[in-house]
C-alpha cells in the first residue's frame, strides 16, 4: 500500500538504533508489508470508542512512602560494562 512507507533511517535515529544499509533496505520492504496489513484497522469507525491502555483498569495505585531495603551500591554496579569510583563511566557529554 502506497500510504505505508517508513523512512527507516529517520525512525532508526529516533530509536537510537544503528542499522547497516542492507538492514535498512530489508526492514523497509518488510515493514511496508506489515503496515499494509495493519491498514485494515482504518475500515472500522471508532469515533465514539474509548481507547484501552490496560485490560484491567486500575487507577491511582499507591503504596506507603516508606524507606525499604534496596540494591546495594555494589550490586547495582555489578553488571556495568564500565565503572570506576562507584560510578558508571560514559563518554564525555560536555566539551
Amino acid at each position, binding site marked *: 500500500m502506497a500510504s505505508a512507507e*517508513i523512512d*527507516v533511517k529517520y*525512525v*532508526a*535515529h*529516533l*530509536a*537510537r*538504533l*544503528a*542499522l*547497516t544499509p542492507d*538492514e535498512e533496505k530489508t*526492514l523497509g520492504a*518488510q*515493514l511496508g*508489508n*506489515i*503496515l499494509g*496489513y*495493519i491498514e*485494515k*484497522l*482504518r475500515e*472500522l469507525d*471508532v469515533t465514539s*470508542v*474509548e*481507547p*484501552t*491502555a*490496560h*485490560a*484491567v483498569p*486500575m487507577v491511582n*495505585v499507591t*503504596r506507603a512512602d516508606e524507606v525499604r531495603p534496596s*540494591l546495594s551500591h555494589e*550490586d*547495582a554496579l*555489578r*553488571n*556495568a*560494562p*564500565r565503572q570506576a569510583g562507584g560510578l*558508571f563511566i*560514559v*563518554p*564525555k*557529554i560536555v566539551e
Partner: protein
Amino acid sequence: MLNQLTISELTAKLAQRDVSAREAMQSCLDRIARVDGKIHAFISHDDADALAQADAADQEISRGAKKPLLGVPIAIKDVLAVKNQPLNCASKILGKFISPYDATAIEKLKAAGAVVFGRCNMDEFAMGSSTENSAFGPTHNPWDITRIPGGSSGGSAAAVAADECIAALGTDTGGSIRQPAALCGCVGLKPTYGRISRYGLVAFASSLDQIGPFTKDVRDAATLLGVMSGHDLRDSTSVPQPVPDYARALTGDIKGLKLGLPKEYLIGGLDPEVKAAVDAAVKKYQELGAEIVEISLPHTDYAVAVYYIVATAEASANLARFDGIRYGARVDGHDPIELYSQTRGAGFGAEVKRRIILGTYVLSSGYHDAYYLQAQKVRTLIRNDFLKAFEQVDAIVTPTSPTAAFKLGEKSGDPLQMYLSDIFTISCNLAGICGISIPCGFTQNPRLPIGLQLLGKPFGEETMLNLAYAFEQATSWHKEKAAI
C-alpha cells in the same frame, strides 16, 4: 524415571521418602545430558546450584516440612530474574548479566520449596512464534527435531515435553505460552492480566505480558498458578484479588456449563487435521454434559493488526533501557548517542530491530493517532466482544494454533506469515482474559501434537481449569510421550 513424573506424583513420592529430591534433580540433569544436544531447550543450567537446592529440600523433608513444591525441579524461561543466575532474554545485548534479585514469581516458587534451575531458550526478548529468533540458536521440537517447538517460550515447552524437568515457567504476550504448549503437546496456562506479579520479568509489552506455567497435566498447572498468584506491591498492575484454591476447583463435573464456539475462528488457514481434532474435542465436551453455544467475536479479524501496533509500541519504549550504560554489552562511541546506537545495533537481532522500528514509528509525531490510538480503540472493541460473549457462556473453546509445528526456516523469511500463526491466541492478551492450551490429538503423518485452547472470564481460572481437567480425565492425549 523420576524426570517423567508430574508435580503431584513426585511430591507424593518425596513425602513418602520413596525417593530424594537429589535423585529427582539428578534424573532431570541426566535426561538433559542425553537429549538436550538434539533439542536445545536450555541456554544454560547450573547443575551444582540445582543439586545444592535439592539437598536443602531433602533436609527440609527429613525435618518433616510440608510445602506444595518441596524438592520439585522447575525450569525457567530466560526472561525471568533468578538471583545470581544469568539473564539474557536470548539476546546478545545483555552480555554477561547476572540477576541481582529474584522475580516475585521466582521468590514464591522458592518459598514453596521448588528447585529453580536452568535458563530455557526463547525468541529474543520473547519476540517470535518459533524460538528461531534466539541469539543462542534455535530449539527443536521433541516430536520431530526438524520442526520448531513454537514460541516464544519454546525452550520451556520442549523441556517439559521431553521430560527434562517436571514443570517450567514461560511468559505469554500474544500466545507465547499456549502456542508452544500446543505444538509440543503439554499444558500451558496464561493467567488473567494482573493475576501474577510481573516484577522481575523483563518487560516486552507491559499491558499484555503475563507469567504462566508449562506442565504435564492440568492439576500441576493449577498448583503452580496457586503458588505464583497474588497481589504484589512491587507491580502496580497486579490485582488485589484473593487467590482461590485452584486444585479444589478440579471436580471434573462440568454438567450444564456453557462453552462458546466462536464462528470467526473457523478460518481458511485452519489445517483440516487440527479442525477435526477440535471438532472431536467439542463433541467430547457435549458427552461430558457441557452445552455448546455458537458465539460471535466480530472483531477477531483485527486482532493481529492491533497486537502488532500495541505490542511493538510498548516494546520500543521498554527496550530503550538497553543502552549499554548501566548493564549488558557495550560498543563504544565518541558520544553517548553513538554509543547507544552502536550498542543497540550490534546487540539486538533482526526481529527485535524490526519491532523497535515499527513501534517507534507508530508512536512518532504525526502517526500516533492514526496507528497507536486507533489500535487502542479497536482493542476496546475486541475486549467488549469477549465481555459480551461471557454474558452468554462460561468459557470459550478454539484451536490453539491453526497448524501443528512447522519446519525450521519455513516462516522465518516472512515476518507477516509468522505473525499470523498467533491468530487464535492474540485476542486473549488484548482482552486481558485467561487462556489454557491442552493436548487434544495428533496429526497423522508426521505424528505431531494438536492443542485445544480454552479461554476463561477475567479471573475465571477455576472454571477454565475444571473444564480442561474434565477433558483430560476423559482422554489420554496428555500421557503420550515424544520418542527422543
